[in-house]
């Protein structure tokens, strides 16, 4: 399955891109996806191993399973206001 990653703020700067697409095995969790992204290197290895994530615009757990074409966002600690 294909997963679209979105990166914001500090994480975008660390990884050097705001968007990635990766193929992952069926049944992969959000945590598996983060590990796969970090394993690509090119700066992505500097991302934290357990970031806050959102799946399809909802806060999610790293244990949640992904589905094909899911949008997985890696969110630094939020600082609005």
């Amino acid at each position: 399955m294909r997963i679209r990653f979105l990166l914001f703020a500090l994480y975008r700067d660390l990884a050097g891109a705001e968007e990635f697409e990766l193929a992952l095995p069926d049944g992969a969790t959000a945590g598996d996806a983060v590990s796969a992204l970090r394993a690509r290197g090119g700066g992505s290895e500097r991302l934290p191993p357990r970031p806050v994530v959102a799946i399809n615009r909802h806060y999610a757990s790293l244990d949640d399973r992904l589905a094909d074409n899911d949008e997985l966002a890696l969110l630094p600690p939020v600082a609005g206001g």
Partner: protein
Amino acid sequence: MTPAVITRDPIDTAALLDAAGDAANGAVTLFVGVVRDHNDDRPVTGMRYDAYEAMASDVLHEIVAEARTAMGEGTVLAVHRIGELAIGDVSVAIAAGAPHRAPTFDAARYVIEQIKLRLPVWKEEHYTDGAARWLPGQVPPMVQS
């Protein structure tokens, strides 16, 4: 007026205040967050706000709806600006109108505190010496493991 908005345009606080008013509302509270010229004793020249815009819009709608439900009656509105902001620019504005004052203070306070906890928005401070840094933030409580 849409109750919750993420925008790149300057925030019109007078319009927000007006929109929260009603003949039945004896009280309107307006909270305004502004970019200040220093942080941790360091002079600041401006701020860049980044957001996961689609999700931030959803989350801000949720927060405003929660505040409105808690208030029981009246109006709650919130606008958060993103992009490049200068010192003195309004970054966030919240208006709550209701028949009596107490619930409007509570609603405005609830919305700003929940924004700080949950809204997927980030800010990069720019300093007079040319340096910049993303400010540390909060881990949203619903995802703490």
